[in-house]
């Protein structure tokens, strides 16, 4: 089916309206999500508290005292029909330095072996594409990226780790992502970035937003330690 002709509205409780625009993980559907989200935000609809755009849908958080849900659906349907009329702001391209393998990427050998690749080939394949951020979630700043080269697709770990260190870069199925904070996680870890991806005290707490592009740049352990020292204000890693 792909992109729907008209949004499908689903009820997510007394304060949430889920606006679904398609039934696939697809760059065009995701772009439409971001366009409609921008249109909703720009319309300053009375009673809309927050919007959360994701792969193919937007959760619109509303105050039922300030707006009737029927009216909200009418407004959003109308906005969706205007989606050709705006262009999204130019996405940013963020370079993420990654020290692959070793203690930072304990699963890189599993990824290499299961595809008959060398570790160098895994690094080369993973750091080549421009990945677009389809959405962020799970933990603050965790980007869900498209699209991992098919050659690297590896099933998630059967037992998730209780603690994945902040900055870890992982692969699960045909997805790749970065853990911005230390958290549990079941993805195959192939490297780590020294960048602070989430820093609430910074003016911009996040380095990127949905729609932006990420490219991974392989770095040495020395460079990792140098950047890590600057980012975290220490000399250790």
């Amino acid at each position, binding site marked *: 089916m792909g992109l729907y002709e008209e949004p499908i509205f*689903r*009820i*997510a*409780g*007394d*304060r*949430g309206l*889920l606006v679904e625009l398609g*039934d*696939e*993980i697809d760059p065009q559907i995701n772009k439409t999500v971001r366009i409609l989200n921008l249109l909703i935000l720009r319309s300053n609809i009375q009673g809309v*508290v*927050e*919007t*959360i*755009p*994701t*792969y*193919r*849908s937007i*959760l619109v*958080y509303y105050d*039922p*005292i300030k707006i009737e*849900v029927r009216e909200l659906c009418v407004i959003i349907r109308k906005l969706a029909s205007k989606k050709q009329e705006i262009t999204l702001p130019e996405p940013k391209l963020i370079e993420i330095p990654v020290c692959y393998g070793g203690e930072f990427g304990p699963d890189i050998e599993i990824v290499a072996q299961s595809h008959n690749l060398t570790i160098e080939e895994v690094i080369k394949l993973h750091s080549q594409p421009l990945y677009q951020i389809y*959405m*962020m*979630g*799970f*933990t*603050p*700043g*965790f980007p*869900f990226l498209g699209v991992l080269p098919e050659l690297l697709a590896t099933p998630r770990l059967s037992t998730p780790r209780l603690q994945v260190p902040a900055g870890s870069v992982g692969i699960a199925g045909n997805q790749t992502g970065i853990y911005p*904070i230390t*958290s549990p996680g079941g993805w195959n870890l192939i490297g780590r970035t020294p960048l602070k991806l*989430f820093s*609430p*005290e910074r003016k911009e*707490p*996040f380095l990127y*937003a*949905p729609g932006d592009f990420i490219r991974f740049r392989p770095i040495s352990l020395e460079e990792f330690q140098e950047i890590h020292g600057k980012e975290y204000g220490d000399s250790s890693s």
Partner: protein
Amino acid sequence: MEIPVLKIIDPGPMTTVQDLGRIGYQIYGVPVSGALDQISAMLANWLVGNWAGEALLEATFLGPKLEALEDVWVAVTGAKVHMTLNGREIEDQNPIRLKAGDILWIKKVLRGLRIYVAVRGGISVPRVMGSYSTYVQAKLGGIQGRPLIKGDILKTRQNAKDWAKPKKVNLTAYIVPDFAPELILRAIPGPQDNHFKNSIGLFYSSTFKVTPKADRMGYRLEGPLIPKDYNAPQSIISEPSMPGSVQIPPDGKPIILLVEQTVGGYSKIATIIWEDVCKVSQARPGDELRFKKIELSEAHTIYRETWRKLNVLREILNAPSHRPR
């Protein structure tokens, strides 16, 4: 002007600073956080003359033991508790006037689970990304992003010394806290009720039990398995959830998602209404609950009526309706 007013003698097992949530950052994967029982949190703040979204304490399982460093008004709401002031039992006294040197000890929870402690003038913590709420996993908000520890000093945000004396109101006359042994949670079908056409009847007619896996992320339930229809997809494309979303993973065991969640890839059979999310937040492991199906329009009527009652109470208590300048 910040004034140190309370010292934590014993924080209790899990006590954090919360408000009504961090709005506007879920797009970046930051969960909404905030008080789980929003109604009890608002009442605590109103009782001491604060606005609803002021920073206050949320304690789980057991309350804190506090020493007053100055004369200060506090209010305790939420779970029904047993508490002492300087060793003497006090009951249903809200708000509570503490004099410098007094020791307030919320010793025991009799019913319910979460206790809210508001301080007149608000608890002074930095506003991080629009909120005072603590999100421990990301070390965000509250006091250094962590639960309270022994020796922490709470300061008030505003000097409330010359505020008018707070009013005493019998809350139960307006809002009756519901600690019934079997909770009835009103829930609206959706967003993926169409994946459960054959089991939705079972979902709404069964009794479930809260398991020990219950925290600010969600409550796992035990009870009859709720199978997905044979032709429904195993998982959905990840999408956001609401506090109160009832997710059914492939094992068929429902999980009520709460405030420290962002996106997930399992179907959600129904969503609990706002007022009942407050109620279920007071449920403990072992408690039983049922879901009652209601339509969206009915839920909205209930929502408006609940807020009308709350606003009457707020006006009686003379509490501000918005964040003061």
